[in-house]
């Protein structure tokens, strides 16, 4: 037993140590505007965590600039906007503008909350990729993000 030689143990042909793993998808979940209800957002944050994502949660009452600055500095691939106040047609255009100003055009933006179906075409036209209404299964959101999140690559 004492002479067992494990030839692969320290093989120099191994790829670079930290490379090759699939890094977790980074997601920002934000509550824009004057909307004090964040149970849904927290349920989603928890579900995304359990799906293996890294989730930055901003908390309540975020302005478009706060959301865009956080997305920029955290370099998230996905932004989830949760809104129950009915002010989405006011806030979403301003958020998309704030993201565009910072060059964050490739970030996948999704929205959820109490958003009337009739508003969805206009929200999509702003560049929001998908709108998840009440009753959407968490797994649907998780799968959508996993399938559509861009991969971060060098910007040069």
């Amino acid at each position, binding site marked *: *037993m*004492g*002479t*067992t*030689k*494990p*030839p*692969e*143990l*320290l*093989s120099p042909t*191994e790829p*670079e*140590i*930290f*490379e090759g*793993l699939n*890094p*977790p998808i*980074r997601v920002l979940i934000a509550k824009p505007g004057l909307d004090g209800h964040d149970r849904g957002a927290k349920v989603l*944050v*928890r579900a*995304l*965590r*359990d*799906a*293996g*994502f*890294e*989730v*930055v*949660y*901003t*908390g309540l009452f*975020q302005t478009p*600039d*706060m959301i865009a*600055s*956080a997305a*920029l*500095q*955290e*370099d998230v691939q996905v932004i989830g906007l949760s809104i129950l106040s009915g002010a989405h047609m006011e806030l979403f255009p301003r958020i998309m503008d704030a993201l565009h100003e*910072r*060059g*964050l055009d490739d970030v996948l933006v999704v929205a959820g909350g109490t958003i009337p179906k009739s508003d969805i075409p206009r929200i999509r036209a702003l560049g929001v990729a998908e709108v998840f209404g009440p009753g959407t299964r968490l797994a649907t959101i998780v799968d959508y993000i996993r399938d559509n999140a861009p991969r*971060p*690559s*060098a*910007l*040069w």
Partner: protein
Amino acid sequence: MTADEVLLRLHGSNRRVLPRLATLVENGDADGLEALDALFPLTGRAHVVGVTGPPGAGKSSLVAALLGRIRAENRRVAVVAVDPSSPLTGGAVLGDRIRMMNRHADDGVFVRSMASRGRQGGLAWATAGLVHLLDAVGYPLILIETVGTGQDGTDIASLADTVVVVEAPGLGDGVQAIKSGLLEVGDIVVINKADQPGADDAQRLIRASFDLAHPSHGRTVPILPTVATTESGISELLVAIDDHDSWLTESGQRSVRRERGARAEVLSGLRAVLDRRLESGTGRSPELAALIERVARRDLSPRRAVNALALALDAPAIGGTVGD
């Protein structure tokens, strides 16, 4: 890529370059690591301050309050906030930023959240790399908020020039305060939530535990009461942090610490490499797999399996004998 080329991009008009480089470093992407290698000679200028302590002591709130003070003095500052990854799914909730959201619109503050990604000890493998990056681009002050840690999370002492240990009332008695661990590595101790009952007792117990030992290199560790939510005691804390920075230079301790930090970073990186190779080795080496399988069947003791492998690696056996 040379440092100049990397810096040109970092200081260019595209504000995404720094955060993206941070992502690439964190992901172990070759482009990111090469850029970091190029920048490394430019590091060592920042004052790196670790903020650590048990979960719920108020680290994030304290960092947020400090950001307010630091910006009031018109100083630029970066924050790296580490939260734990799930050992089961790899997922993480990065919630430290919530407390700092009202500092966002300010270009003098860069806040980056990171998940520990499987590392124990209060930091992520890439935390040091991120700190080097922020140092190289010229942030003069970098705050690292660790994972909420108990008695074991002392890795921060190898990375930070100044360690602030945040405690809160009601977390233990005088025996807790003399145990090995976190308090030992504190250059500054903060009793946060000092408006809560028991704050005076906590301060007295911690003071008493420090009084049992000789001051380290002739310096007495300040123990400061704060209430992060009302910003009470925050100016005093920032003064203590700056004082420690000066003390490190005057006492010659900065170079001692930097050398210790370099050693810790190289060895922990090497450990990570060996770990990964051993992990992948279990999938590829039939001999190693066979040994593990025998241990699982209770046919071979773990020590003998280890020693058989250690012999193959020319490493000393545990307990002196190879056995079997």
